[in-house]
């Protein structure tokens, strides 16, 4: 758990972060979003003390981070930045092994962990283990960057616009993989971005910042349906609002469980905007739904997309 209590950071006369308080729960995926200069990156970099706070307290699992040695604190967290920052003179394996090496893990354990992480991030260990960073594409480099951050099994993962420099296809696949990794490991993630679609797609909760202040911290659904200020409304954007609204809920949330229908079924975790697309593509108003084990889980009607049939949120 990460707690900020009235944390302030000034650079000269400019207040980058202004008395910000929030809590990130254990295992939560928290996205920080805001225009440039809003203080979101500063907040992130205060969590691992790359930037020291001027006032207020930052606690991790109840422990004030000011009482810890910065290096020890940082080795307990993963850290991923937009420009990756792989060590160009080290192989992929040695890059990933950085923090486990600092922590003194046995060699065999490090080797197994590197193999496991390369597989987790869809990089063939036989091909990439001994490669040097300059031999990799941008997307592959960031995969190694994420693997390196996860290497010592950190409880907290800090990510500063990690996918902003990647092409849309690579970005989408890394977003999917990151979601899966988060679900599997239960790591607490703090993720900075300026892209609202990315925030809505990844976050359990989204904190919107502006001029060093925290404007709103809420679930993606609430950010969409109950924006706390015009700025939040602008960040979400009016264009395709309906599709964004659909994207934050899944087919399983709205399917009519008692019904059944014929045809190629959709998985329950499919976002609703994809279900709409599927209906248009197939020319149908009803789609069968299956759960994670492939068992029938009801039917989704076109009208359910407009208005939930049973106790919706909005």
């Amino acid at each position: 758990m990460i707690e900020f209590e009235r944390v302030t950071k000034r650079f000269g006369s400019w207040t980058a972060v202004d008395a910000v308080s929030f809590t990130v729960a254990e295992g939560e995926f928290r996205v920080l979003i805001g225009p440039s200069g809003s203080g979101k990156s500063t907040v992130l970099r205060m969590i691992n003390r790359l930037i020291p706070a001027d006032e207020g307290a930052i606690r991790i699992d109840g422990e004030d981070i000011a009482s810890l040695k910065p290096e020890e604190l940082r080795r307990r967290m993963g850290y991923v930045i937009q420009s990756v920052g792989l060590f160009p003179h080290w192989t992929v394996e040695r890059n990933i092994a950085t923090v486990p090496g600092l922590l003194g893990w046995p060699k065999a354990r490090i080797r197994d962990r590197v193999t496991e992480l390369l597989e987790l991030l869809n990089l063939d260990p036989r091909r990439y283990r001994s490669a040097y960073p300059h031999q990799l594409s941008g997307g592959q480099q960031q995969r190694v960057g994420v693997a390196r951050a996860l290497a010592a099994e950190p409880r907290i993962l800090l990510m500063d616009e990690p996918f902003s420099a990647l092409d849309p296809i690579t970005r989408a696949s890394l977003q999917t993989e990151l979601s899966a990794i988060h679900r599997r490991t239960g790591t607490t993630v703090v993720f900075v971005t300026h892209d609202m679609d990315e925030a809505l797609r990844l976050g359990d909760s989204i904190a919107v910042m502006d001029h060093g202040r925290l404007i709103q911290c809420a679930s993606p659904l609430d950010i969409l349906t109950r924006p706390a200020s015009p700025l939040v409304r602008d960040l979400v954007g009016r264009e395709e609002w309906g599709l964004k609204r659909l994207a934050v809920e899944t087919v399983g949330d709205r399917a009519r469980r008692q019904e059944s229908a014929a045809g190629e079924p959709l998985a329950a975790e499919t976002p609703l905007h994809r279900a709409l697309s599927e209906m248009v593509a197939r020319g149908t108003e009803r789609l069968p739904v299956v759960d994670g084990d492939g068992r029938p889980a009801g039917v989704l009607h076109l009208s359910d997309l407009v208005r939930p049939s049973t106790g919706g949120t909005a």
Partner: protein
Amino acid sequence: MTSRLRLYNRVALLMALAALAAAVALPFLGFAPNRLLSGRPVPLWATVQGLGGAAALLPGLVLLATPFLRPTRFGLGLTVAAGGLFTAGLVWLAGAQAAALAQGASAAARTSFASGFWVMAAAGLLAAVDAARRLGLGAVGRMAVGAAIAGLVALQLVSGHLDALSILKEYANRREVFADAVLRHALLVAAALVPTLLIGLPLGVAAHRVQAVGRAVFPILNVVQTVPSIALFGLLMAPLAALGAMLPGSGISGVGPLPAVIALTLYSLLPIVRNTAVGLDGVPAPVREAARGMGLTPRQIFLRVDLPLALPVFLSGLRITVVQAVGLAAVAALIGAGGLGAIMFQGLFANALDLVLLGAVPVILLAVAADALLSIGIAAATHRIGVLPGRSAP
């Protein structure tokens, strides 16, 4: 073959034509009754006797044909081989002719290399170097080529085939002095490198970290570089002599190795300080940021990230420093520091050009060897980082 003759390599053609012109028009060797008299010219054609002599010139004929060869691995490889063998063959011819002329002449008679030899040898070497570069040989490959050519000449030296040449007669007269001079020359350079690195490395790191340090240090070092070496040696004589007078028994004096080492150090500082600072400046900021974010201590970041990434640039500074110091140390003989410069100046003052050569050739070889060794070091330090020109992702 119906295809027309086509010129592929202008450099090789230029070299071949220069060699051909020198072979016809310039004297190959000079023969004098003693070292003070100027000799009579010996043209190349007069030295070619028998099958061996003709065979020695065969690579020269190949060299004339290589500009018209397709620049394939074979064509370029042949040019490298022809250039190297041609040079070694010229040395062999000179040695054989010197031995023939020595028979029936007095012991004071001298056979020296003349302008034709130098032009042809240079043309052969340049053709080989140029072709080696076109072949895309790395630092190790180029050094192997150089070592092979040097080896062919060294074999002739060791076998005694060249003993009748004037430069080797000068060597024979100064066998002990020569070995001592080579050693002393290398020691002068090494002695200057120690304080250079002890002062230059910290200064380079400081100039990288604190802008003000760089602003203060670089103008001074730049001015030092522009002072002519003889002037700097002279400038150091007076204060050191005064210091020696104040501290009798300290061994400090205005002449000898001490002012030489100080002057060499002053010259060597600029490339070391500058390249250390530039190398560290070139370490990408995100790499340092990631290192800090992962919990490396400042010391670990410096040793594991900054130093290895700055190493190639630092080594090119070291290469400039060493090559420059090998050359400057020759001038230091003027203030009594000894070394190969002492032999060169003896030759200059005695008007014995072969004695000058006996001092100058090892200086060149020392500089070339240091350059080649450090080039290999630079290539090794660079290749993993992937910034060598022409390297790209597979």
